[in-house]
């Protein structure tokens, strides 16, 4: 440290670094979730389709992250007359 450094502005790189670390921690979770949701949706469809004929587009999976509680909401539209598939052993 020398005399001149007293007049210098505070360095900005540490601020950049901290902002990026916080932001990317959130963004990585968000993109990771979208993949998790896609996987969940696909597997849920497969399980239901084993027993009931359903429209793939009518299955909605939603994940809400709260501070105290998180919820996984699964919304499946079933046809009015359920064409049950024969049960398998």
């Amino acid at each position, binding site marked *: 440290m020398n005399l001149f450094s007293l007049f210098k502005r505070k*360095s900005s*790189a540490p601020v*950049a670094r901290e902002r990026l670390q916080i932001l*990317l921690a959130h*963004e*990585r979770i968000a993109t990771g979730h979208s993949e998790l949701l896609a996987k969940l949706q696909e597997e849920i469809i497969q399980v239901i389709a084993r027993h009931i004929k359903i429209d793939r587009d009518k299955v909605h999976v939603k994940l809400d992250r709260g501070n105290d509680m998180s919820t996984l909401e699964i919304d499946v539209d079933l046809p009015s007359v359920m064409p049950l598939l024969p049960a398998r052993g």
Partner: protein
Amino acid sequence: MAKVLVVTSGKGGVGKTTSTAALGAALAQNGANVVVVDFDVGLRNLDLVMGAERRVVYDLINVVQGDAKLAQALIRDKRIDNLSLLPASQTRDKDALTSEGVERVVNELKEKFDWVICDSPAGIEKGAMLAMRHADVAVVVTNPEVSSVRDSDRIIGMLDSKTAKAEKGERIEKHLLLTRYDPGRAARGEMLNVEDVLEILSIPLLGIIPESEEVLRASNLGSPVTLASPAGTAAKAYFDAARRLGGEKIDVVVPMERKGFLGRLFSRRVA
């Protein structure tokens, strides 16, 4: 065994095309058979940086659509025999590229060359996806700047999920190329330094290219910097990076500010 390498970044203007030309030329100067492929359909520039803009007859899209043979579209570099360019189309749009067509052309290129280097367009749309699709190795070009680092992080996520290798459950080899690095500003805490970027992105470092006048001079002249100023600091960093891609273990030297006593005194006074 041929390797397909994608040079990508998410953000524009960080040095993808410059780095594609320099790494391609450096690998060729070391004796490998190299083709550089421009995937930036509609905004081609690799031809200009390579100094081949007046020799383009057919392009990637002509080959993908079967209007030209691969051999007709390839442009051999006038300075290095074993370096070729496959230009992008300037007039068509990116929808003219199909996944199957690109795969066929990449496979054909793999038979003729040791390295197939794909220069990705900026963004995360179709063109960028197709450029990374068949890659074995990715070079993520990043500037020590917040928006570039954020976009690189996003691209790394895509390399791990959207490439053909990733879909087969294999790992794609990823390397960080830090470009436009200003050692003085990093030392003064005005710019993210090498450790900051490495810690955030956590992929292995391929090289650090210092901010250099030689890079702009090289593109003015239409020559990869490793040919235009082979003894300069930027070219040396690219040569080392190319050797690391070839599997050699060479320590990365972090560029330092080189200044005499007077220079140091003055730079502090104006700061």
